[in-house]
């Protein structure tokens, strides 16, 4: 589902964000990418949505070789790859329903689909009662649920989460992780970048550890740190 072959990413001025990274993630896997800030986690996620181009190496996402994916095909790639971020990226002037509906409308889904799928997905993330609230009326955890709902409403094959619990307290984070776990069980491949020890340790899923842009560990059913 996701495969990188000897991928390197060098930003200008010789900053090596990633060096020779090879990862192979099968359909339906749940993978943590861990490592300190600046270790290359976010760069990896940006490469997977073709927001950035690798300096070297090849990337395959959902069966597509991103290296020769033409620019105009990129939006269609992203429809198969949901994204969740630390800062939620919700539109403050739209309600919960409208925020999620927006994700469907702008890819041209008909109104009937929007009317059916949005309440369904909001029910799934536990916000079935709060359709008409605005983001600033919700807690951080609830806002992240809305953002997950928006990323997942289109039933993407892959869900990428960049520090989704970074702004949340531990108790709320657990709820978000349950939600991601539930999404993973529907067959969606989930890749989550984090440096939250407790979460990684409690989930016992595959862990890929990056340090200075290099993979230093790739372990199934791992914990955050061996010996740290």
């Amino acid at each position, binding site marked *: 589902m996701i495969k990188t072959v000897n991928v390197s990413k060098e930003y200008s001025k010789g900053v090596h964000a990633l060096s020779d990274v090879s990862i192979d993630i099968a359909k339906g896997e749940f993978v943590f990418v861990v490592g300190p800030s600046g270790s290359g986690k976010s760069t990896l996620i940006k490469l997977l949505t073709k927001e950035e181009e690798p300096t070297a190496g090849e990337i395959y996402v959902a069966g597509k070789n991103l290296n020769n994916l033409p620019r105009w095909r990129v939006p*269609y790639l992203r429809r198969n790859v949901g994204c969740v971020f630390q800062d939620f990226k919700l539109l403050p002037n739209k309600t919960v329903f409208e925020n999620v509906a927006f994700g469907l409308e702008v890819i041209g889904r008909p109104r009937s689909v929007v009317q059916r799928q949005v309440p369904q997905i909001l029910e799934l993330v536990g916000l079935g009662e709060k359709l008409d609230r605005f983001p600033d009326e919700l807690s951080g955890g609830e806002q992240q649920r809305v953002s997950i709902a928006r990323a997942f409403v289109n039933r993407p094959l892959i869900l990428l989460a960049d520090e989704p619990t970074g702004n949340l307290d531990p108790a709320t984070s657990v709820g978000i992780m349950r939600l991601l776990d539930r999404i993973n069980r529907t067959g969606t491949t989930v890749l989550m970048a984090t440096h939250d020890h407790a979460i990684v340790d409690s989930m016992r899923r595959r862990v890929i550890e990056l340090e200075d842009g290099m993979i230093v560990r790739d372990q199934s059913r791992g914990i955050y740190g061996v010996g740290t």
Partner: protein
Amino acid sequence: MRIVYFLRETVTNLRRNLLMTIAAVSTVAISLLLLGGVQILGLVVHNVTLNWEAKVEVSAFLRNDATQGEIQDLESRLSHMPQVQHVTYVSQRQAFEEFKQQNRDHPEFWQALGPNSLPASLRIKLTDARYAPEIALALQGAPGVQTVKYGGDIIKRLLQVNQVLRTVTLAMSVILLVAAAGLIANTIRLAIYARREEIGIMKLVGATNWFIRVPFMLEGLFAALVGALVSGGLVYAANELVFSHLGNALPFLGPVFDFSTGDIVSVLVLLVAVGVLVGLLGSSLALRRFLEV
């Protein structure tokens, strides 16, 4: 569904930057009004020249010793030329009679002259006044021809003045149109800036670039179109309320301000077409470097 979405977005954008929208609309309107003025001026000059051209003819004054054969040769040569409408022979006597007629209040002008003192001539009416110099040149020095005269200078002058006026006004309206395109581009850029968050999310969830662009393009198009309609409306009103009555109010002008409906319609069509073009230009200017990712 899509169309409703696009229109809703466009209206929202326009409302958010009302002031910039008004600035863009009025710049388009003013520059197109100038362009319309150029076109009207062109129509006026066209009418004036038509008026004058109707009066232009080439006169070939014949030598007194020109033979009947030479005159007939000239006549038949001329009447075979495509630029020539018709040729009239004016004998010495006819010329004298005309002169008498023209100066009947001043008998002293002609009393001393004999009926044969004025030269006979060929009067040549042309299909277009432009050919006058050419025909004159062809006749110059032909057997039997003394001198050739035509009233072309005034037309030449008129066309020159027209050319200068048109060039200057055209240049002004082009400059203003470029400014209008810039203003439209700026309006759209502001709209993009105001919605950068939304655009970011649209890209994130996989909206195509065209889907993101269309509302902004419509916005530029709309601003330009409104400007074009305003200027077109003013041109139309000026024609209905002023020009069409000018002929009656100032009869000495002649039919200078009589424009056919077709002429006015073509000016209006031009204004709207140029307006749309400016709108598209401004939009693409604003959208060119945006949406790279």
